[in-house]
């Protein structure tokens, strides 16, 4: 006997990973899109007339995000101007291929595209950085630089907001990671839907409550084309444990992912716990939790041939840099962006250890 769709009594083709409901294709599209629409409405993410930069990597999350945002923008008349924004880290065999996907998406969705590259911003591609630093701490550089690069790209296209494709699994995983690492400051802000809106470009995550499995399902049934290869530079091993744990939890109780996000949202932190204070970087003038921001320390290390400068004992490195009299000038460092470690960073490759 065919299973009936729980919503329209048509023929069900899938079981929703989030709720277990059997649904037909059309009803799945409807609930998937409507949930994102309600997330946007409930959190007041957008105002009509805004320019919104979509962080597009060519991966499944950002591809689905771009598609759904365009669809919702037309359907519910948000009045947004959407722009695809990609960062070219300069990783041969990975980013060049994924950027081809983004370019194809640009044509399919008829959205403007802007690509900013590490090379033009910092004078270093990730390939060159890996040659210097090896395969151990390279993700630190990539994560710190990507955040800045997205911000600067968004400024170039005169965007009011950046949206990223972080999904519910990513956020739940970050909650777990922050507990496992004891990072109370990030734990507090990692579940908020919008971050970094103190005078800087706000970033939001419309897919915050969307399950990764459903994103893949949506892309599959909509026949969206995306790029799915892991970055060729090794992924973070410790994050792998958290990810595996999350997948096991999801298998036992499918609501676990949303439950973890709910837990993260309802945590309160004791008032007497010391939090990192936010200040501005002496070098590039942007928001930082230290005198010199992480990006400046990393870049200084690269340019001076001391790539390990910003890795590990960060405090000592920064003190050394400040003590050395801050030889770098603003023009040399080219840094005009926000500090990455000060704001949320859920990107899979950008959480340094």
């Amino acid at each position, binding site marked *: 006997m065919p299973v009936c769709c729980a919503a329209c009594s048509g023929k069900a083709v899938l079981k929703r990973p989030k709720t277990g409901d059997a649904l037909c294709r059309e009803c799945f599209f409807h609930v998937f899109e409507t949930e994102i629409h309600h997330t946007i409405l409930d959190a007041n993410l957008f105002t009509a007339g805004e320019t919104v930069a979509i962080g597009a990597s060519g991966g499944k999350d950002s591809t689905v995000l771009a598609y759904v945002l365009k669809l919702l923008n037309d359907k519910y008349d948000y009045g947004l101007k959407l722009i695809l924004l990609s960062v070219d880290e300069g990783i041969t065999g990975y980013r060049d291929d994924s950027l081809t996907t983004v370019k194809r998406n640009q044509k399919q969705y008829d959205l403007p595209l802007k690509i900013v590259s590490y090379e033009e911003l910092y004078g270093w591609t990730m390939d060159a950085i890996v040659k210097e630093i090896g395969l151990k701490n390279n993700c630190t550089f990539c994560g710190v630089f990507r955040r800045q690069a997205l911000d600067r790209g968004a400024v170039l296209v005169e965007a009011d907001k950046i949206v990223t494709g972080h999904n519910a699994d990513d956020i739940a995983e970050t909650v777990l990671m922050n507990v*496992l690492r*004891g990072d109370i400051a990030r734990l507090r802000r990692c579940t908020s839907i919008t971050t970094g809106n103190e005078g800087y470009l706000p970033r939001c995550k419309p897919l915050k409550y969307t399950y990764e499995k459903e994103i893949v399902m949506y892309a599959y049934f909509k026949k969206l084309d995306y790029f799915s290869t892991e970055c060729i530079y090794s992924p973070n091993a410790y994050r792998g444990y958290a990810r595996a744990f999350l997948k096991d939890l999801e298998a036992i109780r499918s*609501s676990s992912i949303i439950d973890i996000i709910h837990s993260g949202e309802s*945590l309160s932190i004791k008032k007497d716990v010391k939090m990192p204070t936010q200040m501005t970087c002496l070098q590039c003038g942007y928001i930082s939790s230290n005198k010199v921001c992480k990006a400046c320390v990393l870049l200084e290390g690269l340019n001076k041939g001391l790539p390990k400068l910003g890795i590990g004992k960060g405090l000592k490195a920064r003190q050394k840099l400040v003590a050395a009299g801050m030889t770098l000038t603003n023009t040399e460092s080219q840094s005009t962006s926000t500090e990455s470690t000060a704001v949320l960073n859920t990107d899979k490759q950008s959480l340094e250890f």
Partner: protein
Amino acid sequence: MHKRLRFHSGIVYIDEGAVTNKNKEKRLQVSDSVQSIMRRYDFPTHIATLEQVFDLERSSVDENPTTDVGDRVAMAMPSLSADMGDLTLDSVQTKRLKYMLANTKSVTAKEDLVQILRHRLLMDIARRYGYDKIMLGDCSTKLSISILADLAKGRGASIPLDTNFADRRYGDVFFLRPMREFTSKEIGIYNHFHNIDSVVIASLTTKCPVNASINRLTETFVTGLQVDFPSTVNTVFRTGEKLCVTDSSDNSPVQYCILCRDTDNLPGFIIEEARRRIRRSQMKKEFEGFLLEED
């Protein structure tokens, strides 16, 4: 030299044999071995079975009578037993407990239910015998597991109450966790050198696969990670210490869920849905047996 305890203590053992479907002989056998250990300490002992939780008056747990009995502390030993001969082990209450568990679908929910019932019964015993504090043997390993398991079950808001030193949720009687700074390994070593015996009692997930329940999976995850990264338990435990109960914005007293004593401020639509389901299950009960198809 041991310092003299400045309070009067007693030991409570709750037999949970009904949870794992143990027969009367087995339950008595376990209780005998626990009893022999309990007798070595110079404390008054109390024995109860988990099903006795149904004997207690609703009011004794839900209300907060302000009694001023002496400074007495009950030490709960959740995996120990004693004189069970005079307790009935096949009573109506036993059947009721088994029925309740059989109707709780997931193993995770069963475990959580048993924990809730256990705490209610401890609270009842403490009030009945005039104890005003209940000490639990939770160690940092167990607490870091429960921090992560609470997170995974959406109970983030009650992590501070479930893991801090004192849990004052019930008003007049506190739960205390004096062993919380030690890891299970430290306790094991201490017991070994002092020849302190313990009894291993099968739980709901004994001999079950790792993914039998969220609690079991989290335990495996934490203990496994602890082997490769020995600071895991400590880091998670310290993270939990930095959390506190949410202040209600309008200074009204914190509201607790009457079943699990969770502090979570649930959104209105969830409370409405819970009410709707309770209403529907009451309706269903009224025409029990006349429903041809389960909906």
